[in-house]
C-alpha cells in the first residue's frame, strides 16, 4: 500500500531524512521508534506534506499514486491521515463544523455526495463511541482549551470520521496519563482494518503495549538502522537507544 523509497528531506539547509525505505502493506501496523532528533516525527510530517520540509530525493507512493506530487489537502483526500503530536487550537470554529467540512472535502474528492448537518450528526454518534465521548464535545471549538488527553482523543475521532487508508500517529502517547492512553489506544485498535495501513511514531515502548505492532523500525540519524518484530521494542526498552546510535554512526561512516 505505502512504498517509501530512499526518501530524503531537509529543513532549511539541514538534511534530516537521509534515505528512508519502507513498505507498509494494508492491514499492517508499523512502529517507528528512535531517539529524539532521529527524524521520526519529520518522516510523519513529510508523508502528510508539511511545507516546512523539502523533499530532496526518493519517492513515496500510496496504492501506486505519487504522494510527493500532492498538496497536503490532496493527500488527505487520497486517504492519508496524520494524528498530530501537537494538535492545533482553532477558536471560534466548532468541532462539528470543522469535522464536517473536512469530511465533505474528502467525500467531494472521491466523487461522493456531501452530507448535510443532520446526517453528519448521525454518523458522528457512531464515531464518538470510538473514543468514548458524548456529543457535547462537538459544540466546543476545535481543541480550544482542550486538555492534552482531549486533544489526542480528538485526533483519533477525526481519524475515525475521515476513514483514512494510511493512518500516521505522531507521538500520540506524549503527554497522556494512563487513562487517556488507554482510551486513545483502544480507539486506534478499533480502527485497525484489513485495508488500512498504520504507522505509529513513538519514543517509548509504553504505547506499544496497547497498540501491538506487526513491525518495529528504529530510526537514528535520519535512517532506519534496525527493523524487526514487536520484540524489538522490548529490547529497546531494556537497553535504550545507545547501542543503536553507535550503529547509526558506523553506518554513516560506511555510507
Amino acid at each position, binding site marked *: 500500500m505505502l512504498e517509501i523509497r530512499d526518501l530524503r528531506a531537509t529543513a532549511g539547509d539541514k538534511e534530516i531524512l537521509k534515505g528512508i525505505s519502507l513498505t507498509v502493506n494494508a492491514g499492517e501496523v508499523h512502529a517507528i521508534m528512535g531517539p529524539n532528533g532521529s527524524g521520526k516525527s519529520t518522516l510523519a510530517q513529510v508523508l*502528510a*506534506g*508539511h*511545507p*516546512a520540509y523539502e523533499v530532496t530525493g526518493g519517492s513515496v507512493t500510496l496504492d501506486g499514486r505519487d504522494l510527493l506530487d500532492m*498538496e*497536503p*489537502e490532496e*493527500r*488527505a*483526500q487520497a486517504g*492519508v*491521515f*496524520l494524528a*498530530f503530536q*501537537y*494538535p*492545533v487550537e*482553532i*477558536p*471560534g*470554529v466548532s468541532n462539528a463544523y*470543522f469535522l464536517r*467540512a*473536512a*469530511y465533505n*472535502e*474528502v467525500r467531494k*474528492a472521491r466523487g461522493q455526495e456531501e452530507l448535510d448537518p443532520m446526517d453528519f450528526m448521525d454518523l458522528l454518534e457512531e464515531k464518538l463511541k470510538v473514543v468514548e465521548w458524548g456529543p457535547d464535545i462537538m459544540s466546543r*471549538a476545535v481543541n480550544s482549551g482542550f486538555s492534552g488527553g482531549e486533544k489526542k482523543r480528538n485526533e483519533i475521532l*477525526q481519524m475515525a470520521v*475521515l476513514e483514512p487508508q494510511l493512518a500516521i500517529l505522531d507521538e500520540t502517547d506524549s503527554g497522556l496519563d494512563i487513562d487517556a492512553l488507554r482510551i486513545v489506544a483502544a480507539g486506534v485498535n478499533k480502527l485497525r482494518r484489513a485495508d488500512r495501513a498504520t504507522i505509529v511514531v513513538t519514543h517509548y515502548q509504553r504505547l506499544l503495549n496497547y497498540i501491538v505492532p506487526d513491525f518495529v523500525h528504529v530510526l537514528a540519524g535520519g535512517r532506519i538502522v534496525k527493523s524487526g518484530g514487536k520484540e524489538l521494542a522490548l529490547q529497546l526498552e531494556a537497553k535504550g537507544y545507545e547501542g543503536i546510535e553507535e550503529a547509526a554512526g558506523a553506518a554513516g561512516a560506511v555510507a
Partner: protein
Amino acid sequence: MTNVLVTQEKPVAEMLRRAGQARFDAVGYPGPKDEDWRFTPVQPIAQTEWCAAPAPGDDRGATPQPTAEELAAFEFGHPDWHTLVFVDGAFSETLSSALDALPEGVVVASLADALGRDGHPAGAALEAHLGRHATVETTPFAALNAARFGDGAVVLVPAGVELERAVHLVCVTTAAAAGAAVHTRNLLVVGRAARASVVESYVTLAPEARSFTNVVTEVVVEAGAWLEHTRLQREGEAAYHVGLTYADQARDSHYRHFSLQMGAAMGRHDHQVRLNDENIESLMYGLYLTRGEQVVDNHTAIFHDQPNCRSWEVYKGILEGRSRAVFNGKVFVQPAAQKTDAKQTNRNLLLSDGARVDTKPQLEIFADDVKCTHGATVGRLDQTALFYARSRGVPAAEAQRLLTYAFAAEVVEEVALEPVRAQLNRLVLGRLYGEA
C-alpha cells in the same frame, strides 16, 4: 455652520458650544507633529470645506428619508430593541422603534430634543454630565464636536433598573451626506446597580459617499452598574469617521466594550476609560478589518486612579491590501492604584504584503504592587495551523479563511449580546469571502 436649535438650548449646551469653539479656534485640527495623531492622516478632513447635512424638515431632494425596510439590515433581527435612528445626523422619530415600551424612568431620547425642551426628564442628567466627561480638551475633534454637535442620543437607566432589551443607536448616512459633516453626541448614564446593553451603529446606505462623521459618546457607569457597550463602525469606504468614547466608572461597576472598525477611508476611535473608585472591572475588546487603502486607528487609554481594579484589553486586526492600522494603548496606574490588574494585548494579522501596522503599547505605572502586562504582535497565519487544516482535506484558501475567522472569533466571542455576536460573525465571514 448654524444650528436651528441653538437659541432655544439649555445653558449647559450653550456653554459647551462656546467652550468647544474657543478650544478648537485655539488648537485647530491636529497634524502629524502631534504625538497622538502622528500616524493618522487628518489632512483630508482638515482640507475639506464640509457643508451641513440636511436638517429635519429640509427638502432632501433626490435622497428621501430611508425606509424601515432599508434599515432592517442593521437591526440584528431585533426591531423590538429600543432603537433611535439618526439619518445624516438628524433624529427620525418614524424610523425609531420601541421607544414607548420603556420601563419606568428609563430615557432613550434625542439629545437635541432633550436640550430644547423645558422639563425634559433628562434635564438634570444633562446638567450633571454633558461635556463633563469628554471635555473639550480631550481631543481637538471633541472640541469641534462640542461646538457643532447636531443631535445624538441621551440614554438614562435609573438606579436598580435592569433593562431587558438592548438600546440601539443607529447613525446612518445617505447620499445626502456626501460632502457633509455630521457631528453626533451621545450621553449614556447607567445608574447605581442598573444593568443595560447599548449598541452604537455607524452605518451607511451610500457606500460611495464622501462624508465626515465626528462622534463623542460620554458614558457614566455608576456604582455597582453593569454596562455592555458595543460600537460598530461600518461607514462607507470613502467616508471619514472620528470618534471619542469616554467612560467614567464608579465603585464595583462592570463595563465591557466591544469596538468594531471595518468602514471608512480613515476611521479613528479614541476610547478613554477612567476607573474612579475601587473594585471596578473594565473589559475592552476591539476588532478591525481593513482592506484597500483604508486606515483604521484605535487609541485607547485606561486610567487606574484607585486600588483593586482590573482592566483587560484585547484588540485584534486583520489587514488586507495596502491598508494600515494604528493601535496605541495607554494604561496609567496612579500611585494610589495598588493591586491593579491590567492586561493589554494587540494582535495583528497581515493577509497581504502591502498592509502595515503601527502598534504602540504605553504603560505608565506609578504604583509598586500591581500586575500589568502588555503584548503586541504583527504577523501572518501560523503555518502549522494552516497545515493542520489542510492535512484534514481542507483546501488552502478555505483553511486560510477558517483560521482568519478563528483569529477574529477570539474577540467576537466576548460580546455578550448574542444577536450582535452572530451579526459580527457574519460580517467577518462576509469580509473573508470578499463581500461588501
